Every structure is written in structure tokens, then in C-alpha cells.
């Protein structure tokens, strides 16, 4: 028995709203989902598990029609869905009323329910969200029933507000496979057994790294899985080391080359780190045109040491100013220190 396990597709999301690539990303999320369905068809997958948050918000009827039409192209694949916290079952949720195709099963209730597939010897258990948050650890006391040879738990959550999950208790539940959703970063809680595939496509700037889905096979009660990288692009964080020698021109050059090397299609958050020449101030706005850049953050500190300054400008206002902040300035004070020192040094003049 072969299966695909996807989660957190977030159809309908508009990542990075207001940025030039936002519309493209919206489309790419749909495309990626369509391609997974096509792949499932090509691979003659028996079971497609969708572990919640298929939609970013409440699905609309026409969107469900679209999805159902895709599902109908793989009639031999059984598809089981649950609603997550984003697309939770509101009272008007079209999930419940929608005339789904024959190969589609939705576990549309916050109470646990299951679907059995006797021909495969598989039971899929799970529940949906009926509200935006569920703080009870619903999965903690869940146990494999033993009524079917293979039992799969389709689950969504794993943080404080969304069904807290305990790894130990999940393992103790004894399910043959736990198909998790909600956490966007792919992670394996138990090898081949309890897995977050992560979101199919990254949906926001914090979803860095590779994204895709999990494919698996259950043979004689043994599960084997593999992660399939699938996302069209990635969010990447670029940490650029800055030294006293770094100039705007060099920085631009460096960033340009780095983006070229790492792939121009990706979306970047640029962090400038290190100690810059105190006289240099980078024009961050100019950097945005070098690629898909979500944000540039200048975390560089001017390359001076406070002790050195105090020694050099002993007894002066500068020393008085630095000392007035005390031994351990907090973040705001540290910034204030930097601004003040900068202003004093910039406006002072060499006496010759």
C-alpha cells in the first residue's frame, strides 16, 4: 500500500502581500498542489492523506469544486482529509455539505471518527477543528484499536493553542503511522512513524528551508517513508558578514553574487552582521532591487569599543555620555548609545 502525506497547503494564501511576487506565490501554491495530485496518479498511490489546513481560510464552494475536480482525476486513490485550525469547520463550512467525489472522505467532526478501507486493511482515524483553537491535548489518550491490521492517525496541531502534542504519548498510542500537520517545518518525531511533512509550499517568510511532502509504503505492517522536496521556491536567510572594510559597493556586489549563486527565484531575508566602519552607513533601500528580498536588517554595530572610546575621549562629554548608561544597557539603551556616540563623533571636529 502506497501513500502520500501532505499538510498545510494553505490554498488561497497570499504570501508577502504587497511584494511583487505575492500573486505568483498564490498561484504557485495551487500549482504545487495540482502537481502532487498528478504525481499521486502517476505513482498509483492508494491513499492520499491531507493533514489539515488545505485552505488558508474558510474554503469557498467554487474552490472546493476546483479541488474536487482535481481529486476526480485520480479515482483509484482514496483521499482522506481533515480540517485544521485555518480552514476549521465553521457552522457554514462548505466542507460538510459539499458533494465530494466517491474517492474522497472527510472526517468532518471534532469528535474522533474513522474510515476503513478493508481492501487495503487500513483504518484512518482523525478529527477536525470546529474552532480556531483547541487547547486540549486530544491525541494524548488515543490508542490504536486493533480492529484493522494497519491504523493511521491523521492529526493536526502541536502547539499550546492547537492540540498540544506529546511525542511520548503519541508513540505510546501505537499507531502504525501518524500523519501530522500544522508545523510548517518538516520534522520527524519518530523515524518512519510520526512525521510532520511541513507545508507543501512555504507560506511566509519564517518558513525557511526545503518544503515538500512525505511518501510512504506499508508492506506487511512495516512502514517506510521518504521526504519529497516539492516546493517551487524557498525562503532563505542570508547572513552577510560586515567588516570595517565593507562599503556599500562591496556589499551590493557580494549580495548580488550570492543571490545568483543560491538561486534568483528564492525569497531572501538579508541580515547584515558584524562591525562596520563607524563612518559607514549602508543604504538598505538600494539592496531591495537585487532580487526577491523580503527584508534587509542591519544588525551591524559600529566598530568601536566603548572602553576604547572612553579612554580616547577621557573626561569628555563622550565619556560622560557612555558612562551615564551604566554597566549593562538594555537593547533600547544600547541603540540609544550607538545613536548618541554616532551623532557626537559625526558633528565633532578635529582641532588642528
Amino acid at each position: 500500500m502506497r501513500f502520500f502525506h501532505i499538510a498545510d497547503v494553505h490554498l488561497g494564501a497570499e504570501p508577502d502581500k504587497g511584494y511583487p511576487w505575492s500573486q505568483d506565490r498564490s498561484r504557485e501554491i495551487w500549482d504545487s498542489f495540482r502537481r502532487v495530485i498528478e504525481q499521486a496518479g502517476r505513482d498509483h498511490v492508494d491513499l492520499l492523506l491531507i493533514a489539515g489546513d488545505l485552505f488558508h481560510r474558510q474554503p469557498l464552494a467554487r474552490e472546493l469544486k476546483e479541488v474536487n475536480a482535481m481529486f476526480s482525476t485520480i479515482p483509484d486513490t482514496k483521499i482522506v482529509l481533515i480540517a485544521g485550525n485555518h480552514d476549521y469547520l465553521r457552522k457554514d463550512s462548505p466542507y460538510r455539505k459539499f458533494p465530494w467525489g466517491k474517492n474522497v472522505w472527510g472526517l468532518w467532526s471534532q469528535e474522533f471518527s474513522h474510515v476503513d478501507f478493508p481492501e487495503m486493511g487500513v483504518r484512518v482515524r482523525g478529527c477536525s477543528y470546529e474552532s480556531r483553537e483547541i487547547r486540549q491535548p486530544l491525541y494524548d489518550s488515543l490508542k490504536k484499536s486493533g480492529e484493522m491490521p494497519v491504523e493511521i492517525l491523521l492529526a493536526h496541531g502541536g502547539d499550546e493553542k492547537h492540540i498540544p502534542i506529546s511525542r511520548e504519548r503519541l508513540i505510546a498510542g501505537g499507531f502504525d503511522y501518524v500523519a501530522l500537520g500544522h508545523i510548517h517545518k518538516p520534522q520527524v518525531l519518530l523515524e518512519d512513524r510520526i512525521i510532520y511533512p511541513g507545508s507543501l509550499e512555504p507560506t511566509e517568510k519564517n518558513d525557511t528551508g526545503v518544503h515538500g511532502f512525505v511518501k510512504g509504503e506499508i508492506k506487511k505492517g512495516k512502514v517506510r517513508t521518504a521526504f519529497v522536496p516539492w516546493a517551487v521556491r524557498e525562503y532563505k536567510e542570508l547572513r552577510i558578514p560586515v567588516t570595517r572594510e565593507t562599503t556599500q559597493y562591496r556589499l551590493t556586489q557580494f549580495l548580488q553574487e550570492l543571490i545568483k549563486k543560491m538561486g534568483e527565484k528564492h525569497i531572501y531575508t538579508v541580515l547584515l552582521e558584524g562591525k562596520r566602519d563607524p563612518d559607514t552607513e549602508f543604504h538598505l533601500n538600494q539592496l531591495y532591487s537585487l532580487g526577491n528580498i523580503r527584508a534587509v536588517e542591519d544588525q551591524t554595530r559600529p566598530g568601536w569599543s566603548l572602553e576604547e572610546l572612553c579612554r580616547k575621549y577621557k573626561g569628555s562629554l563622550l565619556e560622560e555620555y557612555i558612562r551615564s548608561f551604566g554597566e549593562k544597557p538594555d537593547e533600547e539603551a544600547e541603540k540609544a548609545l550607538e545613536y548618541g556616540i554616532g551623532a557626537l563623533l559625526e558633528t565633532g571636529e578635529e582641532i588642528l
Partner: protein
Amino acid sequence: MIIKEVFMKNFGKFHNERLRFQPGINIVYGGNESGKSTLYTFFQGIFFGLRRKRGVASRTDTYTRCLPWENPSWYEGSVLFEAGKKDFRLERNFESRSQEAELYCVTDGEKMSVEEGDLEILLGGATQRIYENTAAIGQLKTRTEEGLTEELREYLTNFQTEGDFRLDPGAALDRLKDRRKEWEKEEKKAREKKERAREKLLDRIQYTREEIEDLEEKLERSRESFRDIGQDRQEEKPAEDRRESSFPLVFAALFFLGFLAGCAGAIFFQLSWLIPALIFLLGGAFLFWYFRDRGEKASARSRKEQDRAIRNERKKGQQITWKEALQDKRNLLYNLQEELEELENDNEKILKAQKEVQSISLAEKMLAKAAGNLQSRRGNFLKERTWEIFGELTQGRYQRGIIDENFQIRLDTGDRYAGLHQVSQGTAEQVYFALRMAAGELLCREEELPVILDETFAMYDDKRLCEALEWLHKNRAQVILLTCTRREIEALESLGIPFHQVDLQIRAGIRSNS
């Protein structure tokens, strides 16, 4: 610090000149052109290097003035001094651009590093500017009363900034304000952008709401029309039924009775059989007509019914579509409201700008406070100490004075406050001297530098001179006094103050070949 020996290998008019000094008062006696000013410059130059001016000005700067008369490419000297109970030798080559110096600890036989700040430490952090403003007192450039007052005021103004770097608190605060304004603008921009996005969303929400209302109204109307049709049909039906069932029955009964009467007439009254036959035929014809009419009516009605059914069906279909659309719109509305909520909670850019603004505001506050603190602390010390020294110098003739915000100095003569221009030049110079000594204590707290005086007491009368010498003898570890007269020597001798005398040979003002 005590200067022990000066060796001018090649400096101005000096050539291989070695001068020794002692702790306490040293009198360097020499007539005009003996090189006292050159020596005075050398003291500065050896410790801090000689300042060079750029361009045309360089032709007359100190550096050029002190170029060795012989072998100008060999421009160097050294000084031997004691600091922290150890002897150090500082050598400097003035010839090169960087005028690099070498520092040795003679006691330990160790080479020190000037680059790494060893000399700075030995000088207690004093910079050239501090030195010029405190320990080294050159000849006053102006001797007029206003000139002196002006010089004093300037001295006090600049006194805030020692070092080779003049800090400008006002300009720094302005700079901070500019930067704060930039971030405030950023914040405003982010707010406006958010507001625009919000308005757009609110528009969509409003539009969706209207669509929902529209659909609800349509559905309500269609439901009403359904109810109306149902009522019509219920009202229509019984009347028709009644007509259909009762009307022909009366006729049929009448005909039947007529027919029976006809038959009876024909049998009993032997009337013609034609009469019942006629009645029968009439009845048959009527029945035929009636049933045909009924059939026609029925088929017409069933067609109407069918039409109605189709219409109803269509209406029902429409109702379902509307209902679905309504539900979809409601979900859409919900989604839009969720989006609005997210938008309203997204203050990332605004908060970032706010944070910067806060930091800069804090910087402004702290800088203003630091400047105030420093000024008042220093100012207070300076004022206190100046009047203290002044009191000692004048032996209580003047109690105190006032230095106001604008550095106007007034002296307390006992019965009134006198402006500096109202007292004698000697007194004014004493204030100046006291001020310098006080400033020296304030700025060179870590290492007392030798006081170098270049003809400082020329304008003092004998009494004032004795007072000054006595004060120096009591309060300073080393004093080097350059003079061209014997007044100071005589005064010291009469006061019984020990001193070390260094005689400078009178050197020719023009280069001699001998």
C-alpha cells in the same frame, strides 16, 4: 611627572644641547634670542609632536620655525622623565611626516609602544590641547584689557572640550533630532500604507455585505412567492372541484329524470317514443359536449400545471444557487474579516520605526543630561578651585568671584563686584593663572604634569610675583620657568625658596658658520 633631562640633538637653533632639570622650581634664564621659546616648543613637540599646517601656512608654522638651522634633515631630540617612580626616555624624529616617537623604560630596560598608548598612559591621558590649556603657559598674545578678557572668555568656552577633538553637543543633538524625524516619517508612512490596505479591505467587506443582503432579500422574496403560489392553488382547487362534481350531476339528474319521465309518458300515456329518444339524444349530446369541454379544460389545466411545476423547479434551483452563493459570501465575509484582523495586528514596520524613535529620543535625553551634568560638575569644580587658588595668590585681598553663564568674570572686592576690566591687568592675569591651574587639576587628575611658564610673570609686580612663586613652590611638584630677567631668581632667593637654575647661552639670531 618630573622632567629630568632634555636633549635637543637638532632642534631649531639648538645642536646637541643637553639641559638637566630638578623637581621643584627650575629657572631657565637666558636673554632674548637665547632659545627660550624654542625650548618651550620643544617641550610640547617632544611629547605630542609638532603640528604642521598645510599649504602656504606651513612656511611659518611652528614646525618650520623649529627646523634645525644646521642639517635640517636631522631633526630630533629626546626627553628623560620620571613617572610612577620609573624613568623613561622618549625620542622623537620630527623629520618624518608621522614624527614617530620611541619610548623606553630606562629603569626596566624595556622598549614600550607609543602606538599602543603607553605614552598616553604615562601622560595620564592628557592631550596636546589639555597640555596647552593648563600646564604650559606661554606668553599672552594680547596685553590689552579687552584682549585679555576676550582670551579668558574664549578659554572658558573652549574649556568644555579638551582633547584634539572638539565635541559639539548642540550639533549632535540636532543630528539626533534629524534622525528621529526620519524614523517618524517612516512610521507615518507605514501607518498610511496600513490604513490604505485597511480601507481597501473594508470596502470589500462592505461590498460583500451588500451582496449578502441582496441575496438574502432575493431568497426572502422567492420564498414569499412560493408561499403565494401554494395559497392560490389551495384556494383555486376546491371551487373547481365543486364545479366539476356538482354542476354536471344536477344536469345528469335532470336529464335522467326527463328521460325517465319521457319513457314513463311513452309507456303510460302512449306518447311518442320520440320524446324520450329526443331527451336521450339531447342528454347524450350534452354529455358529449360536456366531456369534450372538460377534457379540453383538463388538458389546458395540466399544461398550466406543468408550466408551473417547471417554473417552481427553476425557482427552487435558483433558490439553491442563491443559498449556496449566500453561504459562500458569508464565508468570504468571514475570511475578509479574518484578514482585516490579521492586518490590524500586523504592526511590524510601525513598531520597528517606533523602536528607533524611542531609542533616538532616549539618546537625546541622555546626551542633554550628560552635557548638563558634565558642565555643572566641571564648572562647579573649576569655579571653586579657581577662586581658592586666586584667594591664595592674592592672600585674601579678593574673597571670591563670579563666573556667569557667559563667562563674564566679576571679582568680589569686599564692598562690590568689579568687572575684570575694572581691576588691574596684573590682577586679571592672576585670575587667568588661577583658572589654568584649576583646569590643570581638573583635566590631568591622573598625572600631574610639570608646569612650564614662558615669561608668565612679566606683568606681575614684585609682590604678586612672590605670591605666585610661593604658591607654585607649595603646590606643584615641578615648575619650569623661562625668563629673560633676573627678577624671579632674586625673588626666590629673597624668599629662601630652593631652585635649580639653567642658563641658556645667548645664540646668534642669524646662522653662524663657526
